[in-house]
């Protein structure tokens, strides 16, 4: 086995490099969260130490929660992300099933057409998308964002899901057909439960860019009513340039939900990315 290639100095240097890089990756995040719990004097005099009883202060958080309408922005982001995710998974699974299960004229062409969007970013169509939304009266609604993100997520979802659906056994589906199940039941009752892990992968890949997007909320839905967390944080941070407590607290509030979700789902996400190797 490969034990022959492992020597102690090499292991130590591997750990040293990885540890150094881990520190670089985590340092800014830890620094921001740590300092958000300090008083203004503490932030400037001892930026690199964790909050002590002397420097501990929640003033930043009280300012942010008092000033910004963060709970509302948070709801908007949640609605947009969950709704887009639902449509991407539903429509994506249906189209992927049609492309992977049936032979019909234009199948390959349709697959290529849908795959086009993986490489060409939807952002380049912004000018016409805005006109379309203005014409249909959808500007400053969450619906416009949901539509755009659904279109944005579909190409990759169809591509990944049809790869996985090809692996579902034909015998199983044919057994279902002999038992008189409709094609719809076969997809939703037989095939979908079997490709659930790949659905989770698609979900994670779709979710992160939607949650973090700044461009479309800024252009399609910048009103107070429809601001997402990312846009809200951006504007809020712009207003409080000199209030360091508030900025650090706002940043920490924006980091923490994503971080918690990531820690819960990281296993799933990493398995999804490396699934090509593991499967």
């Amino acid at each position, binding site marked *: *086995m*490969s*034990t*022959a*290639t*492992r020597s102690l100095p090499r292991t130590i240097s*591997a750990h040293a490099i*990885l540890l150094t*890089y*881990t520190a670089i*990756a985590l340092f*800014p*995040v830890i*620094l*921001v969260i740590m300092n958000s719990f300090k008083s203004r004097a503490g932030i*400037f005099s001892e*930026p*690199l130490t964790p909050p002590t009883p002397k420097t501990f202060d929640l003033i930043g958080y009280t300012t942010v929660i008092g000033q910004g309408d963060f709970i509302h922005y948070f709801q908007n982001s949640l609605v947009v992300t969950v709704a887009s995710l639902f449509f991407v998974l*539903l*429509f*994506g699974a*249906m*189209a992927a099933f*049609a*492309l992977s299960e*049936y032979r019909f004229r234009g199948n390959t062409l349709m697959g290529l057409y*849908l795959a086009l969007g993986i*490489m*060409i*970013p*939807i*952002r*380049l*169509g*912004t*000018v*016409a998308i805005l*006109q*379309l939304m203005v014409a249909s009266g959808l500007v400053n609604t969450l619906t416009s964002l949901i539509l*755009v993100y*659904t279109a944005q997520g*579909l190409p990759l979802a*169809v591509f990944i899901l049809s790869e996985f659906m090809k692996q579902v056994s034909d015998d199983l589906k044919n057994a279902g057909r002999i038992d008189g199940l409709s094609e719809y039941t076969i997809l939703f009752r037989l095939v979908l439960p079997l490709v659930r892990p790949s659905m989770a992968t698609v979900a994670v890949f779709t979710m*992160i860019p939607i949650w*973090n997007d*700044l*461009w479309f909320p800024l252009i399609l839905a910048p009103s107070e009513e429809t601001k997402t967390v990312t846009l809200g*944080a*951006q504007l809020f941070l712009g207003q409080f340039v000199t209030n360091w407590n508030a*900025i650090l607290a706002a*940043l920490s509030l924006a980091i923490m939900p*994503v971080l918690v979700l*990531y*820690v819960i789902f*990281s296993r799933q996400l*990493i398995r999804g*990315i*490396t699934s*090509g*190797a593991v499967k």
Partner: protein
Amino acid sequence: MAAEIRPKRPFRWHIGIFLAPAVLVYTAIMILPLAGTLQLSLFRNVNESQVFVGLANFRTLFGDPNWSVGFWNALKNNTWFFMIHMLVQNPIGVLLAALLSSPRLRFAAFYRTAIFVPTILSFVIVGFAWKLILSPLWGVAPHLMDLVGLKSLFTPWLGKEQYALTALSLISVWQFVGIPMMLIYAALLSIPEEVIEAAECDGITGLSQFWKIKLPLILPSIGIISILTFVGNFNAFDLIYTAQGALAGPNYSTDILGTFLYRAFFGFQLQVGDPNMGAAIATMMFLIILGGVCVYLFLVQTRLRRYQF
């Protein structure tokens, strides 16, 4: 196939129903607006109505110094932005992946999870957090550099024309290094044990094993990462907008195509927004990205041999 046995089959409505929602949404929100944007770049607003002007918008974009200087500046900056990603992000990604994939490495899951953290954060958080860290007001960066005796090298990088773009590129590298790391890591894990054992039997171990055996096998993944980086970089906007604003200061030194498009389309301060010029810039970005994807598909991918195990 059951369908082939039956001589005459009824029209299969369910295929249409399965395809319809995805194709409709995708066509209406993505393909038609893309086509519409390309079309809009050939028109100009004259007396409140759109008039076909052929390539006049592009002539303005390249001929009128008010536009062409900004465009070439944005393109040059964008190219530098991309080069830094290729030269820094991808080698670091490969190095980390190679270390992570070494057998029996302890804490590999921890390193993997931690190094991927910046990738899941939004540009707003990343841009602002680094702005604070590099700020001379707070003094974290000079303080840290003092610890290693390099304090004299500190300058407010984001505020200096000659350093700002490089600093922002490196911040973006910091954020996205997790993606090449993960993809290469997956590719390295998929190399079968027999190949590695055969190499060891021939006495190829350690570094030379990496260069001679593993690297050629992961070249297709490196190709995919390069094209993903290319598309992502020439489409970037958020980080520059968050850290430097729509004017991409200081003095447009961090202006890239995304921020240039935003200003042309919406206008900013003294500049009036012009959808047609915005569409012309978007068309140029489309052509650049399409060019990159074609180079990848027809020149790079066909030459990379895929190994089937």
